[in-house]
Structures are given as C-alpha cells and as structure tokens.
C-alpha cells in the first residue's frame, strides 16, 4: 500500500572507480584517520612547544628579550589562539556572526574567580575549574542562543554585540557580587605538584603556564578537528549555505546552531579560566569590545574555517602586536630621523608609539586583506572555493567551468 521505493538490484553493475569514490566520500572520518589526526596534532604541538623557546634564543629574537620574556609572551598568545579557534567554530564553521564573544571569556574568568579565590573562600583546583568554566560559559551560550538563534545573521550580530557589552557592564555594576571596577584579586595559581620538572607556577616562572596552555590548545584542537569532519560539522556547513534546504535534509537547524554557540562559548570559558589564573586578577575592563574585535580579526585574517590557519593567525597577530610594534618603536627611534612637517602637523616618527595605533593597524590590515585576499592568510579549501571559484551568477546555474577549474574542486 505504501509507495516505498523499490531499489532493485542496482549495485551489480557498479564501476569500481565510483564505488571507491563513494565509500571514501561516505565515511570521511574513519577511526583510523581520526586517531591519525589526533596523533598529528599531539606531535605538532610537542614540536611547537620545543621549537618556539629555542628559536627565541637566536638573533634577532634573542635581542628583543630574554627567553623567559618570550615564553611568558607565548603563554599569553595561547589565550588568543584558544579564543580564536573557539570563535572559528561559531563564525567560520556555523557561519554565525558573533560580535560579543569576549562575554564568554569574561564568564570563564569570573567563574575561576568565584571558584578559586579569597573572595568566596573557595579554592577549587585549577584543573577542576577548567571543565567547570567551560561548562558555565557553554550554559550562558545556550541561554543567549536559545532565544536569538532564530534571528537572521545581521540581527544576531547586533544581539551578540549587545551581550558583549552587557556582561562586563554587569560585572562592573553588580559590585557587591563582583567588587566592581577593582575586580576580584588574589586568585589561586595552578599547581602541577612539580610534575614535568618545570617548577611551579608563579609570576617569575612562565614555563608551567606555557606548557599548560599548549596542552589545553592541543586537546581543544583534537576535539574540534574531529567535530569539523563529523555529522555535526557537515550540518554546520549546510546551514551556512542554506538554512531552509538544511532543514529539508532533516537537520534541526536550531539545535545545530545552538551547539556551535555552546562549543564556541565553552572554548572561551577555558581561555577565561586559564587567563584569570595567570593574571591572578579579574576585572571588567579586561573584556571590552576590543577583545571581541581582536579575536574576530584574528579569525578573519588567519583564514575563517581553517582551524590551523586561525590558530597561526592569532599567534602571529598577537606577537606582531606585543613584540613587533614595540620593536618598531625602538627601531624607528634608533634611526634618528628628523621631525618633518606635514602641512600644519609636525611628525616626529622617533617619538610615535606604534602601540597606540594597533587598532588603526588592524583596521588597515583587515581592509587590505578583504581587498587582496578575502579568504585570509591560511584559508580552508572550502572557503577558497566560496570566494574565488564561484562567481555570483553561478549560484543560479548556467555557468560551466573549464576542465582545468574542475580539477581544483
């Protein structure tokens, strides 16, 4: 009575080529390749962890600071790497523009402050606070996402922008609960119990922080790259392309977007816990819009959608900002250039502090990037396809690419 399709003995005449392509395409993440991928990640991060501190012993880097200075800087850069790969899930993979991502970073940080400081008298170990911070941030992600993810892209951007402003404002104004402007101080520092022979955490010893953030990033990388190739990852791509068609394929678009939001938020929560433990203080001014903006710029410049590109972008931008601009000051100052007049303005390059112009430089970099290489420095293959190989008219059909172009796909 029902009209269920009768498929018939169709498989008999399958050509081997197609069959191979089918099975490869249908099971993108076999157990082997997933394990292989995780191993690659671990090895890569181990290599990074060994190479970075060695490289800075060589000129010109050795001239810019001691090895400990550098390693401490890397430990801070890691915070932004973590934030960037988390925001990449939301923006790069699910295609949801989140302009208030720093809110979840703040929530993670304050969670640590409540869980491990004299302020509450609780002293939960850092290692337990990591998952707790991630969980709390994810819960806020879901609370924000549930009512707003039905909104179309531009409205969502505005709501997240508002959320990003509200959260620090609450931490600022609910002063009985948060200590207001002064923030919460004296947060506990993590402890390894002298494992790994890197000594204990402290303001003068950056090594344990460096090793810790490297470990957190490596674990986040393993989990996130598995997600990218999972069923959920494919659902994100589908939603990014056409939400209505995705729903027709049986994808629950609301849940799927919510998961992206929650996973992104939990990564920011991890970054928040780590950052709070390293600074040993949280205050509302650490989480203003420039943080959200900086992380978004890192994602875009690094190459939206490509987790390695985004991480590399975040690291490079952080180092350029913290070391590059400082060195630029010293370098230009050392040239002894005379001041000159630009109309009524006197320009003395020797006294300009380029650090003050970092957001101007970001803006310039973003504009240039959008003009010259909109897919970012290290784009994902899919993004590149989106931006270069698909002229707009092709969306509605009737455009045939040449054989040469097809090979690339």
């Amino acid at each position, binding site marked *: 009575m029902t009209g*269920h*399709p009768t498929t018939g003995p169709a498989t008999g005449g399958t050509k081997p080529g197609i069959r191979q392509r089918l099975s490869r395409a249908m099971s993108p993440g076999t157990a082997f390749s997933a394990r292989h991928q995780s191993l690659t990640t671990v090895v890569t991060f181990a290599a990074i962890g060994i190479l970075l501190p060695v490289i800075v012993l060589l000129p010109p880097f050795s001239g810019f600071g001691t090895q400990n200075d550098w390693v401490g800087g890397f430990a801070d850069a890691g915070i932004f790497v973590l934030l960037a790969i988390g925001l990449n899930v939301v923006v790069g993979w699910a295609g949801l523009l989140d302009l208030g991502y720093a809110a979840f970073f703040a929530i993670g940080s304050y969670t640590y402050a409540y869980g491990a400081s004299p302020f509450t008298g609780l002293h939960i170990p850092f290692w337990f606070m990591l998952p707790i911070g991630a969980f709390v941030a994810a819960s806020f992600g879901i609370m924000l996402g549930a009512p707003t993810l039905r909104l179309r892209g531009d409205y969502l951007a505005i709501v997240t922008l508002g959320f990003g402003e509200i959260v620090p404002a609450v931490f600022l104004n609910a002063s009985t609960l948060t200590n207001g402007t002064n923030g919460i101080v004296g947060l506990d520092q993590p402890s390894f119990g002298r494992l790994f022979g890197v000594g204990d955490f402290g303001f003068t010893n950056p090594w344990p922080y460096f090793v810790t953030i490297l470990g957190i990033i490596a674990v986040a990388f393993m989990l996130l790259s598995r997600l990218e190739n999972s069923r959920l990852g494919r659902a994100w791509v589908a939603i990014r392309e056409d939400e209505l068609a995705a729903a027709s394929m049986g994808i629950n678009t609301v849940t799927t977007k919510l998961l992206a939001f929650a996973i992104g938020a939990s990564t920011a929560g991890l970054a928040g816990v780590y950052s709070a433990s390293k600074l040993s203080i949280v205050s509302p001014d650490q989480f203003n819009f420039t943080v959200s903006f900086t992380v978004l710029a890192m994602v875009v410049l690094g190459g939206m959608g490509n987790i390695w590109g985004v991480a590399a972008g975040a690291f490079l931008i952080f180092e350029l900002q913290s070391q590059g601009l400082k060195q630029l000051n010293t370098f230009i100052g050392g040239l002894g250039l005379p001041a000159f007049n630009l109309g009524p303005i006197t320009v003395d390059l020797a006294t300009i502090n380029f650090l003050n112009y970092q957001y101007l430089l970001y803006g310039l970099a973003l504009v240039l990037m959008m003009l010259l290489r909109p897919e970012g420095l290290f784009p994902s293959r899919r993004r590149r396809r989106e931006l270069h190989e698909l002229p707009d008219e092709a969306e509605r059909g009737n455009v045939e690419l040449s054989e040469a172009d097809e090979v690339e796909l």
Partner: protein
Amino acid sequence: MTTENAPVRHAPPADGQPMLRLTDIHSYYGNIHALQGISLDVFPGEIVTLLGANGAGKTTTLRTIHGLLRPKRGAIEFEGKDITGMPAHEHVGVGIGQSPEGRRIFGRMTVMENLQMGAYSRKDKEHLSEDYERVFEFFPRLRERTNQAGGTLSGGEQQMLAIGRALMTRPKLLLLDEPSMGLAPILVEEIFSIMTDINKQGTTILLVEQNALMALGVAQRGYVLQTGRIVQSGPAQDLLNDPEVKRAYLGG
C-alpha cells in the same frame, strides 16, 4: 533498472486511504491570506499535479505541507497521522522529501556532498550505496560530476541534483516545486521522463508546475489553484480537455 515489474498507471483511486490529505488549510504571510481553504488528497503511487498562475499559492501549499509555514486553520495528515505544524526537519523521518522552488542546492558543496546531505538523517546506512547508485542511474550526468561544486552546475543539472538529493532521503512522497523552471525544453522533457521513472519505482509525487501541459501529461490527477483556492480538480485527462483550463493555462 527494474522497470519491468513496476506498477504501470494508476487509475484515479476511488477509495482507499490517501497518503497525504489536506483539509481546509488556511495559511498567512502576516496579513496576506495566501491559502484560503485548500483541501486535497494524494494517494499512494500517484503523480498529482498542482497547477496555477504565478502567485496562486502553489509554493505556499508545499511550504505548509513541509512544515516551513504553520497553517492558521486546517489539518494535514500523512499516512493517517496528523502532521500539522510538524517542523520541517522531522519530515524526512516520516518519509516526505522535497525539491524546493529555486532548487536550493548547496552551491559550495560538491555534487557528492550534496547527495550525502540528502542522506544526513538516514538510519538505514546499509542501503546507502544502493541509493547513491539509484540516483546516478536516474541522472548519469551527476555521476560524471561527483567532485564538481554544485553551484557550478548548469540549471538542468542543479535541478537533477535537487531531485537526487531529495531521493537520498528515501521519501515515500516527493514534493517537487516547478522542476521545469528556467530550463530548455529538451531538459524539461528529460526531467519529466525521469520523474515518471521515479514514480514507477514506487515514489508518490506531488508536482507543482506552471507548465500545465507537461504536468498533466505525466500526472494522473490535478488540482488548479487560483488566488489561494482550488477552483478545479479531476483526472489529468479531463483537465486537459476542460475549456476553462485550456483557456487559462494551456494557451488555447
């Protein structure tokens, strides 16, 4: 493929349970009363066509059936079960697949990835390769282009992909919204002939068309929609000969 033992033409069913039944459906876009009491039946094994001029409410009817628009009044039943207001993503599970207006394929995914998206919610993984093969037998052009981005396909190929993708959900009922739109006549013929094959293999089809002549050529029954109401219905042959339908939709 297995066309020898497939059911041939269905006589207009006199009795029996309809697969899909719409009863007095009213749908709105804000204040616009787009569907003003639609009732229609689709019986298992049929091709039923829904005809009407631009703006008559054909797409709205499919959207309402597919859960993308919630009717203010009326009921939708599928295989005897009330599915009124069921969200779109649950339709795949009950056996309703859709090739939407404007095709809406995933332009940046490859042809193969598009088909995989069709199989996204499938539980019966063991039949998957069979079904990919079935789609490629209906649409050999897709087989040659598995790694090409969907957006770079020609209009006809995109339509084939949209239908193929819907078939990968293994639907009992396939909703097709203007598959002939913007295609060269020769391609329209091809798509309609494949549609007949798909139906002969057991998939029931509700076909929305502006090309009334072609649609009535493949359908067993038809409904004519005008500003949100059904103004005519009956066996395809009768509609083809109806002077009113001839005048309004067949250009003669």
